[in-house]
């Protein structure tokens, strides 16, 4: 069999491999580990959080620290007593050339009180899934995190420390708008 023919057979075998992988991945999509969306910005796609700042506090709460990278924002208010709350303003900009739609917001809360932390509540105002952020536009929304009465016993290693530092990490998942 000459070299050219062997290479053609190899090419066909690789094409079949690619096709098989495509079908397998489509059928097994539930088992694949698929996370949110692209983390890399390009000249076409560039949606990111540009500012996170505290706007209001209730009770004895302190604004604490904030951080943001890409479309992930972390806020860490400091609470002292039940009823304390802090409101933050988050600004998102679409610096790319493609309109974006908010697909979802995922939130994760961590505290210093071990694994039981149902005593904080958070609420987003001014943003929801399916909101469109056009290219060149920006959107500002508020997130309020409150220290409410505990529903269940909380395990804490340092009982005498009255401060409760919580961290709310919000991940905004944007996709290209199809409208």
């Amino acid at each position, binding site marked *: 069999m000459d070299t050219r023919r062997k*290479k053609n057979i190899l*090419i066909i075998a690789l094409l079949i491999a690619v096709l098989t*992988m495509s079908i397998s*991945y489509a059928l097994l999509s539930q088992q694949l580990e698929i996370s949110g*969306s692209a983390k890399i910005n390009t000249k*076409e796609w560039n949606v990111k959080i540009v500012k996170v700042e505290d706007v209001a506090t209730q009770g004895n709460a302190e604004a604490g620290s904030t951080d943001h990278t890409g479309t992930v924002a972390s806020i860490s208010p400091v609470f002292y007593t039940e009823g304390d709350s802090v409101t933050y303003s988050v600004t998102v900009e679409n610096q790319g*050339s493609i309109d974006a739609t908010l697909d979802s917001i995922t939130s994760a809360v961590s505290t210093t009180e071990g*694994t039981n932390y149902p005593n904080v509540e958070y609420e987003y105002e001014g943003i929801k899934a399916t909101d469109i952020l056009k290219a060149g536009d920006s959107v500002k929304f508020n997130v309020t995190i409150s220290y409410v009465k505990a529903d269940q016993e909380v395990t804490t290693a340092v009982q005498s420390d009255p401060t409760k530092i919580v961290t709310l990490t919000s991940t905004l998942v944007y996709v*290209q708008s199809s409208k």
Partner: protein
Amino acid sequence: MKNKKLVPIYIMLVLYIIINFLVSFTSFSSLFLNRLNPILLAIICIVTYQLDSSRNRNRNKIPKLQNFIIYMLLYVVIFYLFGLVFGFYKNIYSLSFRGILSNFFSFYLIVFFQEYIRYKLLINSKTNNNKFLITLLFIIVNINLYYLIKLDNSLDIITYLFGDFVPIVIMNITCTYLSSNISLIPSFIYMGIIYGINFFSPIIPDLNIFVNCLMLLILYMFITTSVDGLIILDNRKYNKRDVKKNKSPFMYILLFITFFFLLFVFGFFKYKPIVIVSNSMEPIFSKGDIIIIEKKNTKDFNNLKINDIIYYRYDNKYITHRIHDIKGNSNSYRYITKGDNNDNVDEWEITDKDVYGKYIFRIKYLGWPSVYFSELFN
């Protein structure tokens, strides 16, 4: 420049770059980039059409094309197999019929216009200086100058450098090589596959940006070695002077070592290196040391015991401390940890799902460059 017909095309490309940059500052940049950009490039393509195509004197294109296609398909297979290890992310580009059509016209078609223009310029240019100039011109065409000036922190700069800029450079060098040594078609196929994955694949392997860059570089090395080898055989057959030299095997060895080192660093294998950035575990290990951890899977959790040193995630940070106490039962353990050099136990409890791995051994001082680098950019 000996071929004066190329001058207007160079001027048009430079104007194209300037217009793109200036329009980016205006409010209708999105409209321009999505709708007018392809039209501008199409106009340049029409002007380029009048250049002579018969100057492509590359012989034996079929064997070169076959080798190239084999390496491209291998790249796709390996790229998606890596997704089984690193995970996937959902494509942000719309996969509706309207979305695909819009993206094809706005972004995908541009790639083919650019490659056509590049090919015509290359086959009508004789010197290597011209090839370098053409490659540089198309690198500038592809990078986003407006986005460059908006980078405002070190993390953004590094992410842009290795996530966008370096891949653009490697891809343009590869396309120049393909167009010069084979023909237009492999250049189309190469860009078509690379951009096709980004625009039209429902899921994309979530590779680290450094691994992605290295994969593109390895692909370039294999393509060029294979095609250069065929050119050498060709020259010998026609008794022509060997103008191409076989690449040193040392280059490949170095590339592979770098590639597997990157895979090791980013956790592809069972053991992973971690740089220590605090002295909380002195004297076992200190800031600037590298420790090797063994990644844990679920069935190994029952083997963790008090005094084991574990690597875990808490509050968006990774911490390496010793297990001080274990609570709970085999269904759900909770670990209380403590740094050997700390007076008190840690104020938190962690669960099985937070534990990433277990400490095996340390390498002293080797992590200091990473510590300096990290502190510099923080």
